[in-house]
């Protein structure tokens, strides 16, 4: 018989622990990610996961303490964990009670561009047919200002919204005239081709932001965005510079759309943004709606091809930052906010329940109300599945309680969607019923066949793997949250 006790004799008596709800997914070879109910995460290996689930994890194990502090398990010392988790969960859902902060007004469907990927514009001089009337604008404004959200952003969309600038002025002044306790802000989405000093001086007085489209270097931009004179790029750059001169540098932002022609040029596109003094870019894939489908632009690349483009762009952005230039990717920073904070950024595509109607709503030029910008693009293809009412015919209650809004919200809720409900990334993802309806014919779609799922899964894994493998990237990504 040994004179010495075994090591087990000296260990603290084993206490029972209880699991808190969590999910796990593969991250890389021999690496898994665990996320709890509110999206706090823990990267580990399979053996630790199995020990955790089978209650074999020792209290002395550093993994035990980490898992306890991140609310994956609780024991006698941390019975408060359930309450904390509950509070965090409530905080995450808080935005739902104060819904619809973004209200888009399609002031005109007319446009002097003829972009093949565009979903909605019309080349027409018919102002009566394709411009929003004052009557429709007033009814739309009534609805917008009834939203529970304390912050109301009114975004003017087109077509080319500046072709109906008189109505923009009418809406801005009417919104400001009304006595509300809302924080109002205004954005004009425009290609800047018809902008001038007078328009921008007005924007300055009323604090109106400018959001424009810049697809990349001159050749690529002009190829993507044809207009008479073949000078879309020149007009956009002139407009950006004039807007900055009059409004200030922070009042102008730009969006790019990735076409097949863009895929080979991520660095050049990013350089174009840097040269024009932007400090971020949104490497945005093409939406499968409207003319993008009619002109077969959407099928020109799949999620894998787009991800290669995104990854090359991201690696370039990381290197730029490593060399001292502050520059970020917009979509990644939205996801990082969802990973590291309990405040939802309210980005429609990355919300569950979906952001349609809740985060954004759009009033079309003719008075029809759609649950999102993509919904009205779908309507342009003849599918009015997400038309939730008409400002001239329906009340606020009828519109925001319509089956066309509540059914997709309920059915697509990712917490109860097959495969999403067990996915470790569900907290950071969305459900996008409009995309799945357009491509798969129902609000949920089969996730193994969904490019939406493939694209986002690839991004999530890329983000976590990069943070795990490079401390500079981890710090950089943390700085993008602010």
């Amino acid at each position, binding site marked *: 018989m040994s004179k010495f006790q075994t090591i087990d004799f000296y260990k603290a008596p084993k206490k029972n622990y209880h699991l808190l*709800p*969590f999910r*796990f997914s593969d991250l890389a070879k021999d690496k898994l990610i665990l996320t709890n109910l509110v999206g706090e995460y823990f990267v580990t290996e399979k053996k630790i996961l*199995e020990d955790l689930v089978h209650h074999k994890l020792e209290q002395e194990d550093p993994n035990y303490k980490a898992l306890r502090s991140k609310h994956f398990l609780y024991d006698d010392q941390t019975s408060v964990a359930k309450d904390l*988790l509950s509070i965090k*969960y*409530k905080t995450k859902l808080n935005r739902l009670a104060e819904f619809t902060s973004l209200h888009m007004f399609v002031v005109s469907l007319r446009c002097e561009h003829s972009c093949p990927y565009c979903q909605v514009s019309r080349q027409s001089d018919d102002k009566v047919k394709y411009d929003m009337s004052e009557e429709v604008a007033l009814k739309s404004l009534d609805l917008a200002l009834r939203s529970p959200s304390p912050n109301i952003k009114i975004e003017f969309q087109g077509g080319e919204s500046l072709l109906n600038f008189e109505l923009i002025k009418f809406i801005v002044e009417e919104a400001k005239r009304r006595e509300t306790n809302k924080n109002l802000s205004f954005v004009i989405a425009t290609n800047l081709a018809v902008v001038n000093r007078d328009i921008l001086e007005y924007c300055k007085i009323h604090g109106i932001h400018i959001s424009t489209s810049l697809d990349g270097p001159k050749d690529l931009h002009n190829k993507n965005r044809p207009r008479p004179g073949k000078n879309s790029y020149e007009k956009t750059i002139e407009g950006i510079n004039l807007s900055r001169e009059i409004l200030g540098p922070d009042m102008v932002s730009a969006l790019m759309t990735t076409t097949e022609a863009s895929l080979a040029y991520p660095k050049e596109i990013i350089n174009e943004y840097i040269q024009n003094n932007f400090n971020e870019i949104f490497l945005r894939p093409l939406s499968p709606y409207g003319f993008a489908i009619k002109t077969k632009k959407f099928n020109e690349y799949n999620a894998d091809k787009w991800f290669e483009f995104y990854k090359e762009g991201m690696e370039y952005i990381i290197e730029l930052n490593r060399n001292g230039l502050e520059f970020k990717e917009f979509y990644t920073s939205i996801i990082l906010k969802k990973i590291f904070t309990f405040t939802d950024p309210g980005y429609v595509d990355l919300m569950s329940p979906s952001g349609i109607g809740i985060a954004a709503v759009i009033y079309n030029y003719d008075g029809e109300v759609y649950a999102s910008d993509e919904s009205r693009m779908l309507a342009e293809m003849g599918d009015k599945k997400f038309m939730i009412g008409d400002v001239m015919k329906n009340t606020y209650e009828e519109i925001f309680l319509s089956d066309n809004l509540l059914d997709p919200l309920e059915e697509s809720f990712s917490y109860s969607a097959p495969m999403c409900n067990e996915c470790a990334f569900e907290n950071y993802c969305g459900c996008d019923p409009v995309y799945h309806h357009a491509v798969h014919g129902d609000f949920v779609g089969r996730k193994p066949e969904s490019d939406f799922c493939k694209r986002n899964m690839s991004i999530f894994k890329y983000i976590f793997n990069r943070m795990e493998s490079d401390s500079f990237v981890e710090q950089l990504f943390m700085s993008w949250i602010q």
Partner: protein
Amino acid sequence: MNLDISFHKSVYPLDVLKKAAYRFIDSFSIDFIPKDNQIYCTLNFNEKLTDKQCEYYLDQFKKEVLDQDLREKIKKETEPIRNLVLAQAFSKTNLIKDE
């Protein structure tokens, strides 16, 4: 190409096998035949896949069954806690009018 595999019911319930199969819905369809203590599965692959690819998917399916079993254990233990607060969500919407 078809590949067969069977699982003992006392080790893996049918629900676990179904969930594992769902993840491969883009690669193969599957027939389940419960008989006696076994669940017999036939994996039906697209003609374009090679034998090697089919074997790979079968191997992945077996690993996924293990993962799904683990998920089931977590789900069962944490079920009461998972049913936390959603009621707050639409509490301040002004959508309900006074009568």
